[in-house]
């Protein structure tokens, strides 16, 4: 009975936040596209509800300045990124691939060597994923 009830309910369920839908830009840029006007939310249009957009940047776990150029390396739940202070752009450190190759690896601490040659990244395995 419980299973049937669950199935019936699931028919009405619209999975709005899929794991891919939750991904937002990790390069500290914000939503800039023109928003569309939305109708009022009512019981009749629940099946049309969608995640329209998100605002905000993911929490930065750690950061370090490149000693040789105006660049910040930072980590968040999506991995490790370089932020170029001049061009104001973020690029992922692609050699380090916790995502999408293996999302269970999370990165946390980062450090540059004094000559900017070496980059240390501490990553841990999240067994909950």
């Amino acid at each position, binding site marked *: 009975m419980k299973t049937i009830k669950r199935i019936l*309910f699931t028919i009405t369920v619209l999975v709005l936040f899929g794991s891919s839908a*939750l991904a937002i830009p990790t390069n500290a840029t914000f939503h800039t596209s023109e928003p569309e006007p*939305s109708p009022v939310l009512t019981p009749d249009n629940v099946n049309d509800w969608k*995640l329209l957009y998100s605002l905000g940047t993911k929490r930065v776990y750690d*950061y370090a*300045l490149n000693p040789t150029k105006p660049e910040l390396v930072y980590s968040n739940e999506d991995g490790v990124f370089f932020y170029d202070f001049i061009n104001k752009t973020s690029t992922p450190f692609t050699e380090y691939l916790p995502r999408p190759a293996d999302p269970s690896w999370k990165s946390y601490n980062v450090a540059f060597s004094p000559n900017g040659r070496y980059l240390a990244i501490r*990553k841990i395995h999240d067994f909950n994923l």
Partner: protein
Amino acid sequence: MISIYDLFDNNKEIKSIIHPRYEYRIRSLEFSPDGKHLLMANDGGSIGCDGSDIVYSLVDLMFDFEPVSTESSPFENSNHPLFTYEIIYERNLCSHALLAYHMFSDDGSLVLVGINGISVWKYEVVSIDINTGQELSKYTVSQDKPGGLHLFSVSQDLSYVIEASYAYPSSPPVELKDFKTGELIQTFPDRIYHLNQTDYILSSKSSSPGFPREFKILDRALEEICTFKTQPSLLLEVHRSRIRITDEKLIAPTLGGQSIGVWDISSCELLWEFPLLSFSSIKNPISATGEVFFNDTSPYLDAISLETGERKFRLSSSIGKSFIGNQEDSFVYEDIKNNLLYIKAGERTFDIFDLESGKWLKSVSISADQDLHEVFITHDFSNMVYRSGSSLRFYYWDITNQEKLPLQSTPSGYIFQFSTKFEKIAFKTEEYLTICPFKTLENCKRLDIPFGYLPMVFSGDFDKLLFKRNKHEQALSDNESELDLKLFNVKTNSFLTLEATPKLYHEEDAFYVTFAFSPTEDLLVALYNDPNNHELHIWNSKTGAPLGSFNVPISARELWFTPDGSKIVVLAGGILYIIGVPCTFP
């Protein structure tokens, strides 16, 4: 695991380090000045510290290691360059009173400052040879003086240490003492932070009340070089772990936490900023137009466009303190008619800003001798309302005439909720709720709380009230759940039971985080949480029928409808997720 990449050689991974004990407890990483060692600061979990502690681990990276071919297989970890390193020194420091501190001295030694985790309350400075791991010299602070001295810093040339009292700044000044002899060299009025691997010293004046605190850069002779005055200001209290020093630049979050700034420490000028946008809410953070989210970026309040994320303006308190967030009275009041914005800016003060530009116009204050708390403003913006001392009684303050107004009575109980436009207030006792006009607190209506239920939230104009089962008051039978919800219609005095959503998890560990009614009151939404599921649940609040559910981020804790009812805004982990119906064009 720590991986080290060579950015000059195709980003090749050249080291892989696993600490056998602190793999999951690493707080920070830092290379030594010679780039050949890595310092790890780890959460120790020592029982000898009566609190948290840090274990510093110094790792020789052995970059020059060459495997000997005659030895065993090169694929054995012990013989492969990728896995060849050595932890040459470890030291445990308690960090419960003030943060333990580390630096590298002019001669390249590692210097650790803090409470020795073995001898409790014994402050020590120890310098360590990073090549051998041998302790070279040690300074121990005397604890026999009143006030409790602690070591605060040590000069990079290891000529002197800084001692300060726990009672600073009310205690005697900071003292500079000879590293070798302990003799007093001189006193200094402010705190001193030696900045690692630079010729500069940071000082902070903590004796000035409130914020911003004054930060200065000094040279090694303690002469002032510059003062941090640029905006946004440096966020720097005593949390040294948040400061990074690289190539004589200081990296730290800016005040308000909406960027990471890089400052030149020879000029105190802000060089670059890495923008962040992290959301934190006050009560009812969405403006009446639905266009603005008032973001609590303590000490500021930022008006952020809910459409683009752009900051329209930033509000600062006129009295130099933080706008009070997370308090019962932390509302933004919009006087649409006069285009004004009222925000509580202190215990008894409201700042008034221009609603369009955010320009500060004036402040209004209550004149009272006692301590005030729960200070609100009525919807017609004529009176400030407050409690004083330990009294539950409300008092009104006529803003125009600057006088206290007499009130006949104050209903019993604590404040439960305000209606959307502050026209009504509800008080709660164990047995009943009272709804009153906030303007007068007279002609109130009493609503009894059904036995076994807890009132959760009113709809915007107090037409509906949501109850949930209270398992602590009445044991639940087999077919009952703490997730059972009941709607009370205030106008008709009738109840409507909301149809149950599926029991997704054992109900002991399942709960609703928060609820919200739509402005039209025909929808009720709730954030549901159990160990495996985090969802937004939706009901038709007129029929009680469940309409659906959506997965939400694990950290979702708050949600609101926009005033026009076209969107739901979910706050999770500092990010706003905006839900609505996409507009479809023909």
